[in-house]
């Protein structure tokens, strides 16, 4: 449904995940089929170790297993690639692990985080959530501006 009326070529609109404390995070879904919702609480360039997010999406795929790949790009080149397992067969970290294709997923709660100060600058972050078959669950291009 979310894709209804969204003709192929059109991009999803950019959203603000957070904007405060010298930190602005904008994102845009790069999944051609759907948009998703994200907001980050306690937005600040001094990232707290206890970071809470809100995240809402329709699952296009089962998520018996779910992984998050993060790539940090600065001035056009990859600075950091990071892969984080969220749901694994033998370690389903979150209560939503095991949800099925079609279900609505809303998560509000903590995310693992290093608790660091973000250096000033503008970063591109590519995020991709995918399942055990490497099928995309959500995908985002984010711009992080720290001033």
């Amino acid at each position, binding site marked *: *449904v979310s894709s209804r*009326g969204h003709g192929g070529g059109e991009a999803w609109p950019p959203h*603000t995940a957070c904007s405060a404390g010298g930190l602005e995070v904008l994102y845009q879904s790069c999944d051609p089929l759907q948009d998703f*919702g*994200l907001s980050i609480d306690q937005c600040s360039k001094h990232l707290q170790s206890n970071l809470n997010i809100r995240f809402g999406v329709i699952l296009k795929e089962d998520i018996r297993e779910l992984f998050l790949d993060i790539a940090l790009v600065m001035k056009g080149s990859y600075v950091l690639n990071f892969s984080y397992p969220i749901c694994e067969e033998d370690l389903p970290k979150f209560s939503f692990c095991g949800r099925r294709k079609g279900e*609505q997923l*809303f998560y*509000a709660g903590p995310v693992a985080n290093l608790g660091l100060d973000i250096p000033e600058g503008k970063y591109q972050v590519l995020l991709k959530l995918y399942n055990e078959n490497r099928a995309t669950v959500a995908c985002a291009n984010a711009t992080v501006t720290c001033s």
Partner: protein
Amino acid sequence: ASCEAIASSDRMCTEREVNRTYSCGHLGLSELPDTLPNSTEVLEFSFNFLPVIQNTTFGRLLNLTFLDLTRCQINWIREDTFQSHHQLSTLVLTANPLIFLTERAFSGPKSLRHLSLIQTGITSLEFLPVHNLDNLESLYLGSNRISSIQLPRDFPTEKLQILDFQNNAIHYLSRDETSSLHQATNLSLNLNGNDIRGIEPGAFRSTVFGSLNFGGSLDVSLILRGLQNSTVQSLWLGSFVDTDDQHLSRATLEGLCGMSVHSLSLQKHHFSELSSATFQCFSGLQELDLTATHLAELPAGIETMNSLKKLVLSANKFEDLCQIQAANFPSLTHLHLKGNMKRLHLGVGCLEKLENLRELDLSHNDIEEDCCNQQLQNLSHLQSLNLSYNEPLGLQTEAFKACPRLELLDLAFTHLRVRVPESPFQNLPFLRVLNLSHCLLDLSNQQLLDGLPSLRHLNLQGNHFADGSIPQANPLQTVRTLETLILASCALSSIHQEAFRGLETLSHVDLSHNSLTSTSIEALSHLKGIYLNVATNSISLISPRVLRILSQQSTINLSYNPLDCSCSNIQFLTWCKENMPKLEDTEEMRCATPPSLRGARISDVTVSCGITAVGLFLLI
């Protein structure tokens, strides 16, 4: 009010109030119709199709105060959607499958006061944005999958008056969760249909509620223990046909001693080992509702309810009114006992201790006896008496003398057997409202309504006059203070021109569902500015004389009459066109003749009776 339709790609919104209020529900719309004026303030746009709403969706309606978007398939609300709607005060988003709400989803309105997010798939209150809800007074969250009432950090509760969690999955209330509610004063919290299984001790300590609804919860004693040290204006602990009820005992209700409750309902529970001790903790109550609690009698000697003001004992199974042991409740001002499951016998003087009683409802009780002075002994302050929907009552002269201060008397659908030639209602100097609809009265009795010097409102619906006619001499002539007169469904075929002569203050006359022709309207020739309902009669032609009488009234309902649309009636038809705003239910003002126009709406017919007298044409 008239209803003008405005078109939009062959789907029509309905105008409820010119330039202000529009209904566009169930039209399959996927955008705002161009024909809606920019000035629209109240917009009902439910059951349409708007998967994404954004600033362009309602952008031009800058004056919106009320927006109902029930079941519009809304998945996404973009953050700028209501950016320009500074006046928006009520937003209804019921039954939309919302995927996510951004922090700024409700930014824009200067004072958003009422928000409905019923059945939007919410699983956690963290789904709610906090931004720009500082003026929120009502928040409806029913039929979601919420399991904790904990509001998000910083959620503004200062002005919150209604918080409705009906039909969610809340089963436990902890102190942490309830602490966010302490700032709201006099909150109405609705937890109906949540089957509460546990409350942390102290969760409601020192909290003041306007109302608390725990309807359908299985364990009344658990709720009461959880409410220790709280103050609740109105506490609803009832059960339902489709939920389990509980056997309430003295122990179950002990928790009431530790809290302050003004009004309590225990609808549909059972009492076990009922005795005066059951009510030991009821002394603080002002109002008690024991509807359908399977009571056959109340114990005598209850000493804790000396100051109870209102008691509701409806839908129980008393046999005799004395079984309510009225002496237990000497301060009662309101007693409602209706829909008793057995035929109720009124007994003699069963209520005589209720000297302060103002309102008594004994309707739907199968009562069949001669009434009412013995039964209502000592109720000298009674102002309102409802005996409607009972079996035949026999009435003597001055049948209500025991209650000289009666202002309202409702006998609707109760067959009255008036056993004397004089009026049974005589000497009720303060009676203002008398409902005698469907009482099978003999309306040829000229004295029927004697002695009612204050009567304003008289309902005689469903009673029949002899020969289907109101003669010049009729019982109405004696009630000269009447303002509202209902004579609907009285099988009337004519009214004497002088029948209402003495009634100078009438402002509302309902003659609908009779067989009257237009000449009967002449009986109203002395009245001006009234509301007149002559729907569903036999009015066909309307003479200039009658038209003059209609012209001087304020609102007229002529629907469902076999109106003539030939040139014989041209004056009336022309008048209609010019007086649409004054006519009610014009949709159903239709032609019966000539055959070519049968069924056509008066509003669709074009008048054209020149010298050539060709007739009238239907204009589509």
